[in-house]
């Protein structure tokens, strides 16, 4: 009797054991996935804890409306606006460079290029985003800035926003080109063919059929690219200078939020002081600016995507 039950029971136990193993593996894999959630929680927690302890000493009103940013000087000013304006100058300027170039590239890739040309051009454009930003910084400082000082704006110092704008703009072209190209190619061929059938030429098909149909994806790529430009650090640290400067003149030196954070961490400001805590307040501002832009971009892609078929 016992002998007959045993094999069954053994098999049952084996199944049970292998099932436990399966659950264990599932749990380990879940832990791997939750690392990303913990990362986000960690970022938010650190920025909030340290940022709030900064705002206990400096009022949020002073921080967000003040126009003097001199936390490391003896007469301290904690107005973040010069850093925000520097960041926006670079961000908007880079957008002015990258939006037309990226859009034209995307249109050329999806509407004009033959598969052969495309297979060469697309990876070449994407190389632009694979180059380390410190290399762009070097190029801006040692090539573009002297060139501009020589031929365009002799009054400029060695650091200027415009050369950072140019390299950051070039850096984000692939984001726009790549995502917009995908959006344009997702527009069904039938729409284009219908337009060709009534006599439109390629320009008209592109601007009146393909582009409007892909607009949501294209706009999403714009926002994503600008958000990337705002978060860019090394090229602006190297080329745009280290002077908080409330200006809209791209030929002056400016400091962005990211460059300020780097400059504090390169210096010898002791941890725990109000001077050091500024990086968390600035980081918090930067984090929410880019987060909001990324969320808007994702929302546009999800909500306004034209679904064909």
């Amino acid at each position, binding site marked *: 009797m016992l002998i007959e039950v045993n094999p069954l029971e053994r098999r049952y136990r084996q199944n049970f054991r292998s099932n436990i193993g399966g659950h264990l593996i599932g749990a380990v*894999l879940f832990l791997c996935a939750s690392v*990303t*959630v913990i990362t986000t929680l960690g970022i938010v927690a650190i920025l909030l804890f340290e940022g709030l302890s900064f705002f206990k000493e400096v009022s949020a009103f002073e921080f967000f409306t003040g126009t003097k940013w001199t936390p490391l000087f003896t007469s301290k000013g904690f107005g973040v606006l010069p850093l925000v304006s520097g960041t926006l100058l670079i961000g908007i300027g880079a957008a002015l460079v990258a939006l037309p170039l990226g859009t*034209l590239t995307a249109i050329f890739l999806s509407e004009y290029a033959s598969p052969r040309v495309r297979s060469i051009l697309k990876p070449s454009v994407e190389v632009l985003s694979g180059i380390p930003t410190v290399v762009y910084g070097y190029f801006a400082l040692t090539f573009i800035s002297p060139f501009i000082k020589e031929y365009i704006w002799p009054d400029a110092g060695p650091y200027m926003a415009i050369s950072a704008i140019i390299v950051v703009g*070039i850096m984000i072209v692939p984001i726009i080109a790549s995502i917009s190209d995908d959006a344009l190619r997702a527009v069904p061929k039938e729409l284009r063919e219908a337009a060709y059938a009534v006599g439109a030429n390629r*320009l008209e098909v592109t601007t009146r059929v393909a582009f409007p149909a892909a607009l949501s994806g294209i706009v999403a790529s714009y926002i994503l690219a600008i958000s*990337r430009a705002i978060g860019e650090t090394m090229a602006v640290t190297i080329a745009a200078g280290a002077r908080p400067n409330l200006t809209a003149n791209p030929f002056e030196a400016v400091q962005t939020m990211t460059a300020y954070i780097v400059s504090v961490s390169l210096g010898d400001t002791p941890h725990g002081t109000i001077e050091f805590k500024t990086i968390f307040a600035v980081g918090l501002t930067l984090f929410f600016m880019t987060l909001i832009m990324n969320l808007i971009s994702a929302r546009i892609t999800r909500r306004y995507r034209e679904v064909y078929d």
Partner: protein
Amino acid sequence: MSDLSGSSRTDTKSQSSMFKTSLALRHFRGRVFYGVCLAGSLVGILLLLVLMNDIRQDGFEYFSRHFFTNYPSRKPEIAGFRGAIMGTLWVMTLVAASAFPIGVGAALYLEEYAKKNRLTSLIQTNISNLAGVPSIVFGILGLQLFVRGTIGYGPAICIGESCGFGRSVMSGALTLTLLILPVVIVASQEAIKSVPPSIREASYGVGATRWQTVSSHVLPQAMPGIMTGMILALSRAIGETAPIIMIGALTFVAFSPETPLDPFTAMPIQVLNWVSRPQAAFHDLAATGIVVLLITLLTMNTLAVVLRIKLGRESAR
């Protein structure tokens, strides 16, 4: 009736105003537009060529054997890149060792194990948001979490006297791991998704468990794609400067790290250090460092392409 004909007349009028331009003009505009698009897509590449040429011109003056064997120095003639190369090697080894299992594990969970529920879509949304967080913010995270072992509230995680990992290779590697994880996960997910469901069904059909199916059928098939994504993510990590400046990679390091808890510098940090000096000689040193950095990246990207072609052919067989 008259109303109808009126509206149709305005329609034809607006139609004709749309197309009243001559055919020749429309052809001309089309060609101009083509030219503008072509020119627009070449601007970036042209600038890239100018950049490459600029670096080629400056970057070979100090390119010699002792650039690779010496440590940085105040004298540009004898300054070298060794500390930075060793630091980058150390950090990248650790990043690969930690990002690969975690990234692939997370991708497997999301693609093969997770139920389609709110938690899963939350994790997925979180990953794509994390990919858009500026790298310097990851640096702030690394500075607190790994260097100091605290999130700013409550006690720090300390072993004896030392809290966190300090300004060490370990802190840098963990920070960069978190930074590239979203990229690794998304690339691995794509690779896993591209494995046809019939393979899984065949495996389940002969009685394999989920893990047996995943580990001996899905993963091997997905591996070329995963490896390609991994190498591309690592080549992004090699060029990252801001986060490891934040965790305090020293910019003047005249030694190579011996253990993961040693201080270090990395290639882009050393380049930054040279760029930010006023003397032109150091700018040339920076260009030489950039040449080494770019050659490394080019090698890795070529490897990724070769791997994709080679392994892709094998798994198709």
